[in-house]
């Protein structure tokens, strides 16, 4: 007889912070206390609060234990499960109210979220198809197989679901186009390439709720008339691949994949294709080439994949998060889906919250939620008492949302209006100490590396832009650089072959739009207002604070600091390499950085 269940978060972040050894301790301690038959340990997918990991939740109470270590995991057994005493040292303390939370229901990070895509993540054992079924899994497939393909597509069109991969194209229309396209066989593809730095929504769904994607792909197969599906996932996601592969096996065993599914005569199966991690392979035409075993480079659209995709056959390609919405839309209907979110962007969106924010992790909120709610209510605000500066969305293809837009509802269209994009949902919070020129340079550097080289504007253009950005950050910016950047950026946007190149200049354009003064400071005053770009910094010693301890002079790797003991030291600017080691070592705050 089971009296308690311990849910241990086995999402990527928790595993990295030691989940496996914590779980081993729990299992050992249960045995030592002779209660291994009464208490069950279950590993789940990502619970979302990644900076609190490893997380252990004890049911039926729902007690939420965070930052559990090998040293204190035993207390959960000896105190909570044997003696009935909550282990208060492992509870979460809300930073603003300093109140201890007992369950996830007491933590604002969780209470403000609406879990649809992530409804099973952290709740079920991803390896158990039975638990997925218990949460209404595969009932949508059963229902869909009783509908006509046209009815399914109509529900999707009515739901207003838009592609969660970034561009926001209406999903129902894509299905319709693929269904109506001539050619056979047809294919269903899931894009799990997720290459934006810092984004991990799709990985978490694949790891935490793999069956929802299998079910959705099977529904898609029935709706467009395909018998074959491909899951494209990057090799850097080994756990997602492992769990998805296991889930495919279980789905075949239970007859949700294979021949004559649920006795309806419908055949469908899925194969995994592992990508080598090139960012361009998130672009759909490049991804399809990669599945075919060719080099992953994009091709001109049209023809769209719906007309000529895999092996030139009609192909439906959607992103992981898009598919994760499908079974629930089939089960609950289009109206239900539209009940949250904004009119033109219904439903929810999962964001990977990162950067200078208290609570990092995965959050799912209705479309139209404001940045203020995301950063300050769910995210818990900016650490260290610093001021909010901006949020970067859409990764290397996106731009920034500034403090002026904190109260703007976030959806596909509003973000586009201010020059950024939704992207796949990476949201990086920047505080006042961030240099926007440096941030833009970072993202541009990423696309320069990842450009596949097929078309000239992207291959050469982004490199030229990057070299200008480098010059600007090194204090060699010239009059007219801003105008040149703008011009080149627009040419690249207009003439690049695929989405990678067309969106690569966005981080630069967006930061020039909102922070032109910072660019001007770098170019004309040779100053970095945020003290980030090291070539533009000057380190000097304040005579009134220097006690002549010689620490800085001994630390300096290039002997740029001279001075006698107990006398004021000086920095020789011609020798200084701006490494900052004097600033770090000085105990008297005598080094000025400006």
């Amino acid at each position, binding site marked *: 007889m089971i009296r308690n269940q311990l849910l241990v978060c086995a999402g990527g972040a928790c595993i990295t912070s030691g989940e496996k050894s914590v779980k081993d301790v729990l299992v050992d301690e249960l045995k030592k206390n002779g209660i291994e038959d009464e208490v069950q340990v279950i590993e789940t997918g990502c619970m979302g609060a990644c900076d609190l990991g490893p997380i252990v939740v004890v*049911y039926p109470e729902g007690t939420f234990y965070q930052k559990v270590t090998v040293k204190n995991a035993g207390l959960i057994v000896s105190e909570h499960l044997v003696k*009935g005493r909550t282990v208060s040292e492992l509870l979460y303390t809300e930073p603003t109210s300093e109140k201890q939370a007992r369950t996830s229901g007491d933590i604002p990070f969780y209470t403000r979220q609406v879990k649809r895509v992530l409804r099973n993540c952290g709740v079920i054992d991803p390896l158990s198809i039975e638990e997925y*079924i218990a949460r*209404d899994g595969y*009932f949508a497939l059963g229902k869909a197989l009783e509908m006509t393909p046209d009815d399914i597509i109509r529900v999707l069109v009515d739901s207003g679901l838009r592609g969660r991969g970034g561009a926001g194209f209406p999903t129902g229309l894509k299905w319709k186009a693929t269904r109506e396209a001539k050619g056979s066989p047809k294919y269903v593809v899931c894009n799990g390439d997720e290459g934006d730095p810092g984004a991990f929504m799709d990985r978490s769904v694949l790891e935490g709720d793999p069956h929802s994607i299998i079910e959705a792909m099977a529904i898609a197969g029935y709706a467009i008339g395909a018998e074959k599906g491909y899951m494209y996932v990057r090799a850097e996601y080994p756990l997602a691949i492992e769990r998805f592969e296991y889930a495919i096996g279980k789905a075949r065993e239970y*007859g*949700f994949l294979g021949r004559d599914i649920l006795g309806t005569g419908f055949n469908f199966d899925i194969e995994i294709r592992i990508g080598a991690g090139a960012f361009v392979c998130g672009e759909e035409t490049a991804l399809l080439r990669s599945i075919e075993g060719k080099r992953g480079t994009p091709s001109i659209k049209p023809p769209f994949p719906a007309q000529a995709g895999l092996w030139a056959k009609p192909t439906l390609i959607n992103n992981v998060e898009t598919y994760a919405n499908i079974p629930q839309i089939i089960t609950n209907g289009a109206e239900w889906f539209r009940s949250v979110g904004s009119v033109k962007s219904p439903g929810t969106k999962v964001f990977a919250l990162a950067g200078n924010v208290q609570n990092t992790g995965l959050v799912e909120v209705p479309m139209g939620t404001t940045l203020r709610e995301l950063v300050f209510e769910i995210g818990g605000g900016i650490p260290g008492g610093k001021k909010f500066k901006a949020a970067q969305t859409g990764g290397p293809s996106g731009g920034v949302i500034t403090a002026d837009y904190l109260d703007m509802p976030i959806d596909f269209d509003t973000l586009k209006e201010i020059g950024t994009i939704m992207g796949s949902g990476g949201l990086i919070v920047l505080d006042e100490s961030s240099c926007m020129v440096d941030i833009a340079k970072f993202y541009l550097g990423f696309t320069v590396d990842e450009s596949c080289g097929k078309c000239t504007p992207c291959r050469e253009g982004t490199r030229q832009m990057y070299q200008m950005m480098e010059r600007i950050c090194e204090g060699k910016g010239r009059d007219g650089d801003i105008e040149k950047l703008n011009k080149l950026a627009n040419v690249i946007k207009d003439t690049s072959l695929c989405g990678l190149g067309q969106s690569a200049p966005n981080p630069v354009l967006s930061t020039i739009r909102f922070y032109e003064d910072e660019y001007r400071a770098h170019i004309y005053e040779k100053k970095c207002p945020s003290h980030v770009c090291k070539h533009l910094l000057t380190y000097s010693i304040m005579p009134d604070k220097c006690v002549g301890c010689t620490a800085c002079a001994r630390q300096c790797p290039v002997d740029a600091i001279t001075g006698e003991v107990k006398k004021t030291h000086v920095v020789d600017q011609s020798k200084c390499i701006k490494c900052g080691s004097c600033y770090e070592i000085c105990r008297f705050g005598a080094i000025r950085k400006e």
Partner: protein
Amino acid sequence: MKSLEELKRIKEQTLRDMDLRQAKERGKIIVAMGTCGIAAGAKDALMAIIEELEKADIHDVKVVQSGCMGLCDKEPTVEVSMKDQPAVIYGDVNDANARRIVREHVQGGNVVADLVIRRENI
């Protein structure tokens, strides 16, 4: 798997295994598991309650543990608080008494008078 009926059957079966993770709204049974309680047999009471609830197919009542309630000479003690009713504390809850509490109080709605230590708000 050839039919939705089969799917429903798996759902029902698995829901039972996942029962501990569902929200349980109707009430809460708290078993005091201090050192005194455990020594007096609180573990037996706990397992008897869980077993009896399962037997009676009751899934909307949560069974949780607490530390010592301070009634050490009456251990094992068990508190039953059903929704919209005052909490009742029972003493000397051995295996048989635990089963009676589930049958008579949780299932039948009648307080087991001879085991009550103190009734609040009366």
